[in-house]
């Protein structure tokens, strides 16, 4: 279908983009890669008066190191994230999960920032950034603020960003030395996760010293499987990991849709958590 009519702005830098958003109030939408927004416009599920295309803002793209963190520009495409040597070295979980997103053509356009700002609990990257204890940096008329991932995802398709704020970068603590794995269950290739599990494991003397587990599509926001994380501390073999994974669905509220019932999603979370942690711990 043909999208509804809108005004179009293509700011050259972040300040200009924020001014355009502030002037337009609630009626503006940021256009990043467009791989979620354009399908919504085509289906006439969104009616912005102004579309602010941030695709030409060079400062929003690219990856750099900042001490113990990796800083990824919001407009860095999925394709560039997967190939970036710094991401592969210091944030392997993000590279691995991004490779499962959509298909090559969508990955050429879609961006890390767009995936997070969209706040779809079925998206793969929100749970990954949550598991990595990432921080999101937003710029608004009053300047910049840093939002921990735990506070960023507010509800279904709703982030903590104000309408006049632009997500500018994502900060991820480096996970050098951690094992990682993203386990995604989907019905067909190029489909969204029915459930996904992101696992990070730090081992010490053959045992799990610390584990972080993020859940995709187990509620209206991405979640941490806190009970499983706690039960994993000290796990020394596959049986102990399997026992810890039994609590992966505790305190989740998975939805019902044409792909799965809440009970089936809870089952998947347990099975996928076991697989993901075993793989991340190198015990698989």
């Amino acid at each position: 279908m043909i999208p509804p009519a809108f005004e179009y702005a293509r700011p050259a830098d972040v300040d200009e983009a924020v001014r355009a958003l502030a002037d337009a109030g609630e009626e503006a939408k940021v256009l990043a890669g467009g791989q979620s927004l354009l399908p919504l416009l085509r289906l006439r599920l969104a009616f912005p008066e102004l579309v602010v295309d941030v695709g030409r803002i060079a400062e929003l793209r690219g990856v750099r190191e900042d001490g113990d963190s990796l800083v990824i520009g919001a407009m860095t495409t999925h394709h560039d994230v997967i190939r970036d040597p710094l991401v592969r070295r210091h944030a392997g979980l993000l590279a691995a999960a991004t490779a499962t997103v959509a298909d090559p053509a969508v990955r050429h356009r879609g961006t890390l920032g767009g995936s997070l700002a969209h706040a779809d609990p079925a998206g793969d990257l929100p749970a990954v950034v949550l598991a990595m204890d990432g921080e999101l940096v937003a710029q608004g008329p009053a300047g910049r603020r840093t939002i921990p991932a735990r506070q960023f995802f507010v509800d279904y398709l709703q982030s903590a960003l104000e309408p006049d704020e632009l997500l500018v970068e994502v900060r991820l603590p480096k996970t050098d030395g951690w094992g990682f794995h993203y386990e995604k269950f989907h019905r067909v290739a190029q489909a969204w996760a029915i459930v996904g599990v992101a696992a990070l494991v730090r081992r010490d003397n053959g045992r799990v010293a610390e584990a972080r587990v993020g859940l995709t599509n187990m509620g209206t926001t991405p979640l941490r499987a806190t009970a499983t994380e706690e039960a994993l501390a000290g796990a020394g073999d596959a049986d102990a990991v399997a026992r810890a994974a039994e609590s992966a669905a505790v305190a989740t509220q998975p939805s019902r849709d044409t792909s799965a019932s809440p009970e089936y999603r809870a089952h998947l979370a347990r099975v996928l958590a076991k697989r993901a942690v075993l793989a991340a711990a190198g015990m698989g």
Partner: protein
Amino acid sequence: MTRVSVKVDGTNYEDEVEPRLLLIHYLRDRLGLTGTPVGCDTSNCGACTVDLDGESVKSCSVLAVQADGGEVTTVQGLAGEDGEWTGLQRAFHERHALQCGYCTPGMIMAARDLLRDNPTPTSDEVRHALEGNLCRCTGYQNIVRAVLAASGQEVGT
């Protein structure tokens, strides 16, 4: 209206377009390049795949204004001046990689994107590279074989 200047299949165009105009509609309805079809409303089928600045994109999911200053290649821009097909196009023809042909422009553009990066892919890599392109006729086997054959690899029949 917004002014756009784009190079498509080697020709430069300057146009005034509505910002909401999708690149696929610009190509088909304004430039008459109907070799690239539209197959869905959900960005899933990949029939509309073209190259934008050297990368495959779904042209139903890009605005014409986003292509401003860029270079687009459609399936119609692949053949040589004399109309001679590329090896990939020939392989699709020879290996019966199409039945109704609706998915073919997108399949060829997506396969071309893969071979640019990875000149001798495995059959698995071909399947992954084409995961955003749906074919309702062939069952994909001959499409995969055609891409492998175009890469110069031995394939059975």
